[in-house]
């Protein structure tokens, strides 16, 4: 909202510069977002919070300046004029439901001379960004900006029978509003009608049919209090935003409604030589709000300050509150009518703190009593992230909302039911993602397009799937690898193309780091590998097929993916560590290098070695593999490293040799290996 320095000066003597005034307003909660010099005046643009409709006016801001600077506000109380013209029938007002409209007043002003507004008035409106129309319309706008209450002027002669009905629109009723739009109305909309038809959408915009024009001679000036919720709904539904609706939605008050009507009449008489010819109002008297009990000790208990009772009285009085002192340090406080936001003592504490000044309140540190039982799983997730980073992966954060098409293209099987967004702004926000992988694949494609040789990324975030009652939301880990990682060694560069085994390695490291044992990778064919922990399916790894790669525009590169249900995985974490004493006797390592048919899985082979090697065999691991020139087609070369150890002695060649040889024979017999 905009106010000007000179206009404010109509209400009080400001002795400080516009710049320091802006500073003071900002520090009182009226944030001045810009201050510009224009037309010999200064225009302040102020962000008014939604709880303070009373600040949406020059008077409201002036009132605040008065409290902050201690300058007295000039009295604003125009008098009701004596009606001189006689023999004129009064306007009839009928309000269908007082809940919709708690107050309605109409003034009849006759013999107005429609014309342009005087220059000073035009200029003031223009500084606030309001276009001048004619003197009557300008005056209603002027009063709106000055006092904060919206008014509407009808051409009285265009109203049927000079009767005003405040009612809900009937189904199918139409109105053409001042912006020349024909609008279909319904029972959810409050209208101002004559005997015949709606003449205005209450609180939002007037109708074209009774618009004040150059031909207008007599006017009916409306000042009313409408139900904010009703105005808000109509505004949202019709998309009709106006200065008037903005204020009604936030709440106007009876006193200002009356004041504004009178002030506008005064200006119309002065500037358009109108004659006041009657006033009628209908409405319920506002129930007086109860006084609020306020204790000085409470104020200081909330603020951590030492504000005295007299200071509290001074601040609240400056803000137009009525105070009745009770026993020492306690008050009964009554808020002025325009302060509908004040409902309880805490609201008064804010007022006191605000005017006393937040900078004056000391800084202290609270004694915090930590409750360790309620800590979430962020620490363990952090540990997970750090482990993945240590393994060379980059964390990505992708959108939780995705489009269906990306999901389809990425070749990830969606759950039975997706969670759809009711009001997406674009197709990219259609559904809540059921998997992290589409986003990660998009991230890979994005980076490959930007000349990256490889990308290895992960994300830890929630995924969603539809289910009865409420959607299922759970934490997931997604990993995506693509391309060839260049690895520099002493011998030079090696290009290491990501394959499923890289991902297996990463997951194994991760599981070991978190004390997860008994995990298992089982191939399902077509590049799909299930990952289980303690026989419970926990996730999968996937070597993305060509069809999906083509659909995603990824060429000549393999994409390796994994998605792990983190909630399942975290339930298996075991961080209880136990120390095993370091072996006292040396181990003996014997490698077996051999060739084996490449369709024989190594899992069974290793298991057989381990069974045979008991109890001296400590471990058997594949430490090298080779396929190439020296290996016949259909075979692969493997090196298994067997580590033997006893806890009570150094092993001798004589006890080792027979065991190791028996393992070699076993492999030859059962797996058909050929030693190299």
């Amino acid at each position, binding site marked *: 909202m905009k106010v000007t320095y000179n206009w404010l000066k109509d209400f009080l003597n400001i002795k400080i510069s516009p710049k320091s005034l802006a500073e003071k307003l900002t520090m*009182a909660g009226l*944030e001045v977002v810009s201050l510009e010099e224009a037309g010999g005046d200064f225009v302040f643009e102020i962000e008014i919070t939604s709880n303070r409709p009373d600040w949406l006016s020059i008077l409201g801001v002036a009132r605040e300046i008065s409290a902050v600077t201690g300058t007295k506000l000039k009295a604003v109380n125009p008098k009701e004029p004596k009606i001189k013209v006689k023999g004129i029938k009064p306007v009839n007002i009928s309000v269908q439901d007082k809940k919709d409209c708690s107050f309605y007043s109409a003034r009849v002003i006759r013999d107005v001379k429609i014309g342009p507004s005087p220059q000073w008035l035009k200029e003031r409106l223009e500084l606030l960004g309001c276009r001048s129309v004619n003197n009557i319309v300008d005056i209603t706008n002027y009063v709106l900006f000055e006092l904060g209450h919206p008014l509407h002027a009808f051409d009285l002669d265009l109203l049927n029978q000079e009767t005003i009905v405040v009612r809900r629109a009937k189904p199918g009723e139409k109105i053409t509003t001042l912006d020349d739009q024909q609008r279909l109305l319904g029972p959810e909309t409050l209208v101002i009608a004559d005997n015949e038809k709606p003449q205005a959408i209450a609180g939002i915009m007037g109708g074209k049919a009774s618009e004040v024009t150059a031909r207008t001679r007599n006017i009916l000036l409306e000042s009313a209090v409408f139900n904010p919720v009703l105005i808000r709904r109509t505004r949202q539904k019709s998309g009709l935003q106006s200065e008037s609706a903005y204020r009604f939605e936030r709440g106007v008050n009876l006193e200002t409604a009356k004041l504004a009507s009178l002030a506008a009449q005064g200006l119309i008489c002065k500037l358009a030589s109108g004659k006041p010819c009657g006033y009628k109002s209908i409405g319920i008297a506002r129930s007086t709000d109860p006084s609020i009990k306020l204790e000085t000790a409470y104020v200081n208990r909330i603020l951590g300050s030492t504000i005295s009772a007299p200071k509290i009285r001074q601040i609240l009085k400056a803000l137009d509150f009525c105070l009745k002192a009770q026993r020492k340090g306690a008050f009964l406080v009554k808020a002025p009518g325009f302060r509908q936001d004040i409902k309880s003592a805490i609201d008064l504490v804010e007022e006191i703190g605000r005017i006393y000044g937040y900078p004056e309140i000391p800084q202290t540190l609270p004694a915090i009593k930590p*409750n360790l039982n309620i800590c979430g799983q962020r620490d363990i997730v952090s540990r997970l992230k750090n482990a993945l980073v240590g393994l060379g992966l980059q964390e990505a954060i992708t959108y939780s909302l995705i489009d269906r098409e990306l999901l389809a293209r990425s070749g990830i099987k969606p759950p039975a039911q997706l969670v759809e967004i009711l009001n997406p702004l674009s197709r990219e926000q259609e559904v809540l993602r059921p998997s992290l992988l589409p986003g990660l694949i998009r991230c890979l494609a994005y980076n490959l397009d930007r000349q990256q040789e490889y990308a290895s990324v992960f994300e830890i975030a929630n995924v969603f799937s539809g289910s009865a009652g409420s959607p299922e939301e759970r934490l997931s880990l997604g990993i995506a690898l693509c391309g060839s990682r260049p690895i520099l060694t002493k011998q030079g560069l090696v290009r290491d193309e990501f394959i499923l085994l890289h991902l297996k390695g990463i997951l194994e490291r991760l599981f070991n780091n978190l004390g997860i044992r008994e995990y298992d990778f089982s191939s399902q064919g077509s590049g799909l590998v299930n990952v289980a922990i303690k026989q419970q399916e926990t996730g999968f790894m996937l070597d993305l097929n060509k069809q999906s790669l083509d659909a995603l525009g990824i060429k000549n590169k393999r994409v390796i993916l994994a998605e792990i249900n983190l909630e399942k995985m975290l339930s298996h974490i075991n961080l209880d560590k136990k120390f095993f004493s370091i072996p006292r006797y040396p181990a003996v390592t014997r490698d077996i290098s051999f060739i084996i048919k490449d369709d024989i899985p190594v899992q069974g082979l290793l298991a057989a070695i381990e069974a045979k090697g008991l109890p001296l065999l400590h471990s058997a691991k594949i430490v090298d593999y080779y396929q190439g020139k020296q290996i016949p087609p259909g075979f692969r070369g493997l090196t298994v490293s067997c580590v033997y150890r006893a806890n009570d002695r150094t092993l001798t060649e004589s006890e080792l040799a027979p065991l190791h040889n028996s393992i070699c024979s076993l492999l030859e017999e059962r797996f058909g290996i050929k030693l190299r």
Partner: protein
Amino acid sequence: MDIKLIQAQIETDLANAISPQLLEELRVKYLGRKGLIAELTASIPTLAAQERGAFGREVNGLKSKLLTLFAEKEKNLTGSIQGEINNNIDIGMPGIAPTLGSVHPITQIIDEICGIFTRMGFCVVEGPEVETENNNFTGLNIPLEHPSRDAFDTFYLKDYPKLLLRSHTSPVQVRAMKAHKPPLAIVVPGRVYRPDAVDASHLFMFHQIEGFLVDENIRFSDLKGTLSLFAKSVFGRDIKMRFRPHFFPFTEPSAEVDISCIICKGKGCSVCGRKGWLEILGAGMIHPNVFKHVGYDPEKYTGFAFGMGIERIAMLKYGINDIRLFFENDLRFLNQF
């Protein structure tokens, strides 16, 4: 023959052996097939029967002593050979190391902020992103049909009436307070969603950190002290901070918190809009209505709450000018953090 004398002689020779070649010559001389030890051993049968045992033991002792000494000497000499080789390395060549990734800058900022608050005694708690209208709005004293809701445009779910994507992390306040009794000191990082048109400073998804402290006798001054410590930890000791009155439905009194502009140090520049101040968070004393909603006695308990946008903090701290960069996941962006 005096074995001890021989040993002393050999030790002297060893000390003078300054190269592997010299050491090898000594090994041949003493331990070789025709060396001194072999000679001594061969001489044993020529001795008188009663002398053989003692002499044999002495020779064996000498032999094992020499083996140790030679091994030690060899280790020393080859060690210095390695030194020579290392000197031949062109240290201008690239270093060899496994790749190290990094966590996302948003995660880094969240970790940093959570770290500051956990050191003060706060716990980190997270909450679901799909929320109820009640936790997101009504429980936080935001009436459904009130202009104060305009600040929180919200994504709703299609097949689940009354469910939405949380538009702020504050619903976790309601959840935590319903689940636990005071005292509570909690920080809540997480994703939030608002249907905002996307531009350089707006996205439909971003991150917030919420913090709140509830106990008997928590005061606005405590809020000031806590946040001041926080701002100095994140932005530096010299930073100035100011609390401006503001309005949030769930706090009263409420404040917006500014820090002196970290670019121009408060003089006024394009980043701070010539104001010299940067708004970084919203805060206030938890509204008694929020306490009533969760069944806390507002006469007994008071508390403060604060919330901030992580992307904004990260943009200020790192000098990032477009919020979209965070979720494009360009490796050339991510690698910088």
